[in-house]
């Protein structure tokens, strides 16, 4: 019996929403990779407070949690939505397909928002350069599509994602894709194209950070 077994048991035996929240927070705080399967299970319990705690725990565990997250049943919509947030926070490239799908097709703005941010913060340092370029290309295409999302908060997150992607990529300033990213940010920063002034401000901040 490992040291986290009692913490896992406490989650499994929680009798009320509050008990589940407390037990999940305690398990999440362990940071132990062995907690990942149980934390992923909590994502499907329809308890938002506990799911937030589980997402935090999964992000802290990081890479070892990714396989468990990717194995979730796609029909379990609630759990998948939380998994997108966890994958966006972890930044593991194996989450790429799920993040793209979430940004372009998910019905929940909060899920699309998390996916957009995640697509700008994937950890690509370990990849071979051609592989890395291919992933960056996929992220860029998805984020460019996300610029026309109907929800301001998703477009806001797309601006953040584009900044992160351009910042983290090895594109020189005159690179075709760097220009496409900055052109998209310029549009998001312009009142003719973007109605929400907070999105325009965020896009302007991204451009300023990318050009100085």
């Amino acid at each position, binding site marked *: 019996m490992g040291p986290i077994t009692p913490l896992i048991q406490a989650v499994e035996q929680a009798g009320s929403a509050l008990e589940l929240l407390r037990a999940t927070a305690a398990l999440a705080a362990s940071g132990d990779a062995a907690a990942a399967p149980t934390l992923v299970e909590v994502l499907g319990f329809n308890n*938002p*407070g506990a799911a937030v705690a589980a997402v935090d725990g999964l992000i802290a565990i990081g890479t070892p949690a990714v396989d468990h997250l990717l194995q979730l049943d796609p029909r379990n919509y609630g759990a998948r939505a939380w998994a997108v947030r966890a994958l966006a926070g972890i930044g593991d490239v194996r989450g790429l397909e799920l993040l793209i799908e979430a940004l372009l097709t998910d019905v929940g*703005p*909060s899920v699309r*928002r*998390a996916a*957009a*941010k995640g697509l700008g913060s994937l950890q690509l340092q370990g990849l071979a350069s051609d592989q890395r370029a291919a992933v960056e290309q996929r992220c860029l295409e998805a984020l460019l599509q996300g610029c026309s999302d109907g929800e*301001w*908060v998703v477009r*806001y*997150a797309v601006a*953040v994602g584009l900044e992160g992607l351009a910042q983290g990529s090895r594109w020189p300033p005159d690179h075709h894709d760097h220009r496409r990213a900055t052109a998209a940010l310029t549009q998001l920063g312009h009142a003719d194209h973007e109605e*929400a*002034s*907070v999105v325009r*401000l*965020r896009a302007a*901040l991204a451009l300023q950070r990318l050009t100085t």
Partner: protein
Amino acid sequence: MTGEPISEAEALERLRQSDDPSMQYYGAWWLGRNRSQHPDAVPLLIEALRQRRPRDVGAGVEENAVARNAARALGKLAPAARAAIPELLTALEDPDDGLREAAARALGELKAREAVAPICQRLAGGPAVAGVQQASNPRLVEPCEALLEALGEIGMADLAELAVIEPFLGHARPLIRSAAARALLQLSGERRWAEPLLELLRHEQLHVRRAALMDLGAAGWRPAADAISATLAENSLKLIALRGLVEHGRGEPGDEALLITMDALL
């Protein structure tokens, strides 16, 4: 009522006919939701606002359903819907408190200065009169939350108005206290009126914390940024509140600091 996507022309047509109120109800909603700029939209909505009818229990339709939705839509069509202000002022005197609520919100969104005096009159009795619960249902005698919020939105402060609002800070219902503090904060910009809202961010009930988030956002009270960020509620609502601070607020924290706070909640 159908949720099928329809065109603007179809929405106008549904509102124009009068055989089927549920079609009118949906048409009115559509025009507001999509912020229709069509020249017929406002006149048709004014016409619909005049259409009062009692609640049809059998059909499950609320009292004055079309009129209420027309009022809500007119609020969304600000400033083009200013022509509707006289009709909304009449609706503010209607016996149906649900219609008065919708009219008050619309007058707030239209920033109708003409509405300040009649709204203050409705609230003048204070929590023990205007704010007392109706005998037959849980609603208050006056739609206090909407009336208070409208005063804050219209934003024309005088001392008499502040004196009408202030007693509602002592109302038994936290959402009424929140609306009162928001209006006072919007009208005066004084820090002391932010304190009740900051306290409500820590209220034990989630729906109260949500209301306080929305109210701080509407008031654009920037010093609340960290407290908003730390509130136990969905990030979606905290982001809406912080957007309010960016777009309606001034001073410290500055734009960039607020945006960084928002980024962390995505």
